[in-house]
């Protein structure tokens, strides 16, 4: 235990020593139905395996669901919210799928079911908020989303349009981009009223996006996505000593430094409504 590390719930950090720590639901959408007009996400199983191992090592009860349709995603989230989390300290939801742009001032974007329709991230987080899941009230609820928004490729600044063709990236690089959806239902079922913000503020929720909705997220068919690969490695190397926000800063930095064969840029997004530091409890291997 590093000096100064608080194991118990305190002003500074969340209590995270329940054994096991909590549930971790991974939704891994790989094979999309032809009618969805979305391509299969080759390489996603690699991401899924990495994160399953990682969150087991962080003492979570990991449940993997593969190829869920829109309604099944909502069903799984609803089932997770109806579980009794009283004896746990945390809850994690990981979504690996195609994504699309949906505007929202806290949690923008949406994640596609294998049948096509997309579940807004705001709705995904709402399933676990204090109102819908009282046994997680005051406990950190973490969402990791490997997906992307509209079809915009963020090429950085120095690249001319002529050079920024995906063919430069090589055949192994696929993107999670899909055509823009126009759906933009704003759902507000948040937790608490913040003294400063005039809209109710979600509390104890953190969403980490592989990229801001609206930009491409890179996935290699052989090695998985940059974001998951980096997240997995940073968690492996630093979870024993650093808090989650610090580690996400490292992830964001590394992913943004990377670029698909030197052309495309990707910047992950962290939308953090946690009230305290969060230290995981890695299990001795």
């Amino acid at each position, binding site marked *: 235990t590093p000096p100064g590390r608080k194991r118990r719930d305190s002003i500074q950090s969340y209590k995270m020593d329940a054994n096991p720590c909590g549930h971790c639901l991974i939704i891994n959408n790989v094979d999309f139905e032809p009618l969805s007009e979305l391509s299969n996400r080759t390489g996603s199983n690699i991401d899924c395996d990495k994160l399953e191992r990682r969150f087991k090592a962080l003492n979570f009860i990991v449940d993997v669901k593969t190829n869920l349709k829109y309604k099944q995603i909502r069903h799984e989230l609803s089932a997770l919210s109806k579980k009794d989390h009283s004896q746990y300290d945390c809850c994690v939801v990981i979504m690996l799928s195609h994504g699309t742009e949906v505007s929202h001032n806290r949690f923008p974007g949406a994640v596609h079911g294998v049948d096509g329709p997309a579940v807004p991230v705001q709705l995904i987080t709402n399933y676990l908020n204090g109102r819908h899941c009282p046994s997680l009230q005051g406990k950190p609820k973490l969402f990791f989303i490997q997906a992307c928004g509209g*079809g915009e490729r963020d090429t950085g600044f120095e690249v001319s349009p002529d050079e920024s063709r995906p063919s430069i990236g090589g055949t192994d690089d696929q993107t999670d981009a899909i055509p823009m959806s126009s759906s933009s239902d704003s759902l507000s079922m948040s937790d608490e009223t913040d003294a400063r913000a005039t*809209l109710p503020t979600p509390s104890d929720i953190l969403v980490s996006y592989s990229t801001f909705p609206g930009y491409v997220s890179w996935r290699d068919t052989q090695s998985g996505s940059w974001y998951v690969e980096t997240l997995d490695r940073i968690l492996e190397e630093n979870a024993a000593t650093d808090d989650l926000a610090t580690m996400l800063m490292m992830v964001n930095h590394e992913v943004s430094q990377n670029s698909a064969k030197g052309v495309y840029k990707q910047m992950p997004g962290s939308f953090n409504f*946690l009230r305290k530091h969060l230290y995981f409890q890695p299990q001795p291997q």
Partner: protein
Amino acid sequence: MQHSSPRVPMESFEERLNSFSGIQHPIHRERLARAGFYSTGTGDRVLCFRCGGGVKDWQPEEDPWEEHAKHYPGCSFLLAEKGQEYINSIQLQDPPR
């Protein structure tokens, strides 16, 4: 992805700036207007023209962009003007809110 759409009220900097006329505000109106905020006409309450996010109870030392990024990190105006790296730096800063 921004598409040209019908005119949004308070979309222009000047409009937002003018909304503060006759309003006593602890923050310089030009800084608020630049950060996308306009006055609701009630106390120090401001709203973002793009995301609709509101902030009140301002302290003189506060930075409008920082507050925008702290409370409404999903705002597309904020993203376009400041970039995701800036938003992340506010969202992951120490100590947490």
